[in-house]
C-alpha cells in the first residue's frame, strides 16, 4: 500500500510525479491512497516511499491536459479517479475519445467545473487600491473560489496586471505579486481592505447600463450565481434595480412625447444649410 502526500500548493506537479512513478512500477489503483494536505490526519501522516522513476509510460496528451485541470477540483476522489483512468489507458489508448465512458465523463465534468471556477475567478475578483506610496501601485482582493483555482489562475493576473503589485487573498491559497514576482501562500481569513472610492463609480455604471425594459433575472443569476455576490461591490444594487424596473418602464410609457427643445430647430437649420453648401 502506498500513501502519497500531496501539498496544497504545487498539487499538480506532486500528483504527476507520483503518478508517473506508480504507473511505471505497475502499482494498481487499489494499492494507492492519496492524501491531500494531510487531510487524512495523523494516522497516515507519513507518506510511504514511492518507487523510483525507472520506466516511463506513455499517456495521451489529452489525458495530461485534463489531469492538469482536474487536480484542482475540490472532490477528494479526484486523484484516485485520475489514476484509475491512467491505469486503464495503458491497455485502452483510444479511451480518451470515447465520450460515452462513464468514468471519463465524470472526470470531464470535474474538468469543466474547474474551468468554470477559473473563468469566474478571472471575472469576479475585485481589487481595491491600497493607496500605498512608491513606484508601483498596489491592490488587493478577497475572493472565495469553489475549487482550488488560485494557483492555476494567478498567472493570468500576472500577465494582465504586470505593472502593479497585487494580492488575491482566499481561504484556500493566497497569491501575491510583488515587483514582478508571483508567489503562493497558505489561505487566510478575510483581510480588512481599505474603502475604495472607485467602487461607487462602478456601482453607478452598473445601475445605468442596465435596461429596465429588458429585465431577465434568471439570465443574470445563471452566469453570476448568488454565492459570488457578497464579494462583488456592484451586487448591492441588484435588488433595488429589479424592484424598481417595472415602475421605471411605466414612467417612460406614461410620459407623453415632449416638444423638442428650442435649440433643435436651430441646429437642424444649420445642418441643412451646411449640407447644401458642400
Amino acid at each position, binding site marked *: 500500500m502506498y500513501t502519497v502526500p500531496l501539498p496544497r500548493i504545487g498539487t499538480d506537479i506532486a500528483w504527476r510525479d507520483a503518478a508517473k512513478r506508480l504507473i511505471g512500477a505497475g502499482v494498481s489503483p487499489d494499492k494507492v491512497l492519496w492524501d491531500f494536505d494531510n487531510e487524512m490526519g495523523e494516522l497516515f501522516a507519513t507518506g510511504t516511499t514511492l518507487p523510483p522513476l525507472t520506466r516511463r509510460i506513455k499517456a495521451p496528451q489529452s489525458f495530461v491536459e485534463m489531469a492538469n485541470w482536474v487536480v484542482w477540483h475540490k472532490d477528494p476522489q479526484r486523484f484516485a479517479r485520475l489514476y484509475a483512468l491512467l491505469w486503464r489507458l495503458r491497455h485502452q489508448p483510444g479511451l480518451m475519445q470515447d465520450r460515452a465512458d462513464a468514468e471519463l465523463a465524470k472526470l470531464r465534468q470535474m474538468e469543466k467545473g474547474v474551468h468554470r471556477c477559473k473563468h469566474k475567478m478571472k471575472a469576479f475578483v475585485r481589487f481595491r487600491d491600497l493607496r500605498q506610496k512608491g513606484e508601483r501601485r498596489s491592490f488587493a482582493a478577497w475572493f472565495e473560489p469553489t475549487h482550488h483555482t488560485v494557483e492555476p489562475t494567478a498567472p493570468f493576473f500576472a500577465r494582465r496586471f504586470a505593472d502593479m503589485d497585487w494580492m488575491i487573498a482566499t481561504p484556500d491559497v493566497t497569491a501575491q505579486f510583488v515587483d514582478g514576482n508571483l508567489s503562493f501562500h497558505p489561505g487566510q481569513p478575510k483581510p480588512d481592505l481599505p474603502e475604495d472610492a472607485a467602487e461607487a463609480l462602478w456601482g453607478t*455604471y452598473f445601475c445605468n447600463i442596465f435596461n429596465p425594459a429588458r429585465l431577465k433575472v434568471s439570465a443574470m443569476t445563471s452566469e453570476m450565481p448568488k454565492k459570488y455576490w457578497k464579494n462583488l461591490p456592484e451586487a448591492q444594487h441588484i435588488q433595488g434595480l429589479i424592484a424598481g424596473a417595472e415602475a421605471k418602464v411605466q414612467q417612460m410609457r406614461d410620459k407623453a412625447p415632449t416638444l423638442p427643445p428650442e435649440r433643435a430647430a436651430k441646429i437642424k437649420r444649420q445642418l441643412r444649410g451646411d449640407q447644401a453648401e458642400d
Partner: protein
Amino acid sequence: MARLDLSQKLAILSDAARYDASCASSGTTRRDSRDGKGLGSTEGSGICHAYAPDGRCISLLKILMTNFCIYDCAYCINRVSSNVQRARFSPDEVVQLTIEFYRRNYIEGLFLSSGIIQSPDKTMEDMLRIAKRLREVENFRGYIHLKTIPDAAPELIEQAGLYADRLSINVELPTDNSVKAYAPEKNPATIRKAMGDVKSRKDVAGERSYTGKRGKRFVPAGQSTQMIIGADGSTDATILGQSTQLYGEYKLKRVYYSAFSPIPDATAKLPLIRPPLVREHRLYQADWLLRFYGFGVDEITASRPDGNLDLEVDPKLAWALQNRAQFPVDVNRASKEMLLRIPGFGTRTVGRILSTRRHRRLRYDDLLRMGASLKKARAFIVAVDWSPGGLTDSAGLRARFAPPPEQLSLF
C-alpha cells in the same frame, strides 16, 4: 445648469450607451504586459465581469463620449429633438475611468461611441484622441472598441483602426427606406462605403508585402454592426437577408440585433412598445444557424407565410417540424451536416458523436453522458436502443415544445 460631477456624467453617458447590444471583447490578438511596461492583456476569449439584471454581459466600459447630438434619429434617446439631460466627458475623464476600472478588474476595456457634436470629423477626432492616449500614454493593452461615425473622413476611420481592436458602424435599420424615414441625416450608401473601406484596409493589413512583413495591425477583432429590430415594419426574412449580405460583403464578425426599446422622452413617430425580446432572441438563433449550421435564409424563413420566424419554437426546431420526412436521423450513421440539423444538438455535441462513434455504437444513455440535450432531439433521432416510433410524425409534436396558451382569466 449646474456643473455635473464625474458620477453624474457617468450615469448619463452610460445610460445613453445601453442600447448598443455589443459588449464583446473576444477574438483579438493575444497581448499581455509581462514586460512590466504597460497594463492589460487580451487572450482570445473575452470575459464578462458582471451581469446586469437584464441578463446582459458587462465586459467593457460602454459609454458615450457625449450625448449631445446634432442628428435627429427617431429611435435614439440622444437625438437633437429629445429633452434628455446632456453631458460630455473630457478625454482625460474617459481615460482615467477606463484605466481605474481596468486596474480593479471590473472590465476588459472600453467601448466608446458618441453623439455627433459640431461635425462628424470633429467627433471622430476627439474619440481618436482618447484611444491614442490610452495606447500611447497609458500603455493600455486591453480591449478597445470604437463606434465609428460613418460620415467622418476615411483617414480618421483608418487611424481609428490602428488603435482599436474592433470598429463598428451601425447600419441602424434593416432597409434603406427605414433609414431614410427614421434617421434622416444618415445615408445608407455612406454607411456601406465606410464598412467597405474598413474591410479593404483590413484585407491589406493581413497581406504580407514583398519583404514578407505584415502591414500594421488593423482592427484585429474585425468590424461589427447593429440593427434595430421592431422599430420599422421589416420582416425577419428581410432582416436575415440583409445580415447575410453584410456578412458576405464586409466580412463582418457579428451583426447585432437590438430589440427596439422604449426610451425615455420618445418621439411620437415610434410606438411605445415592449421590446420584442423573443423576436430578437430568435433572430440571433437564426443568425447562428446561417453561419455555423449550413442553413440558408430561405429554409429558415419558409415555415411561415408572413416571412417572420416562429416565436414559439426555435428556428431549428421549426425547420425540423416542417421537414419531418427527413427524420428520424440515425446518430450512428448520419453525416455531420445532417447531425447538425437535429433540434437540440449543437456543434459540440455533433463533434462528440462523431468522435465517439468510432469506438462504439451509440445508445441513448451514451448520448446523455456526452452531454447531449435530448429533450428536443429524442423525437428526431434513432440510436441502438432508441427509436421515436410514431413520435416524429405525431400531430401533437409541436405542442410539446411550444409554450402552453396563456390562461384566460375572468374579468
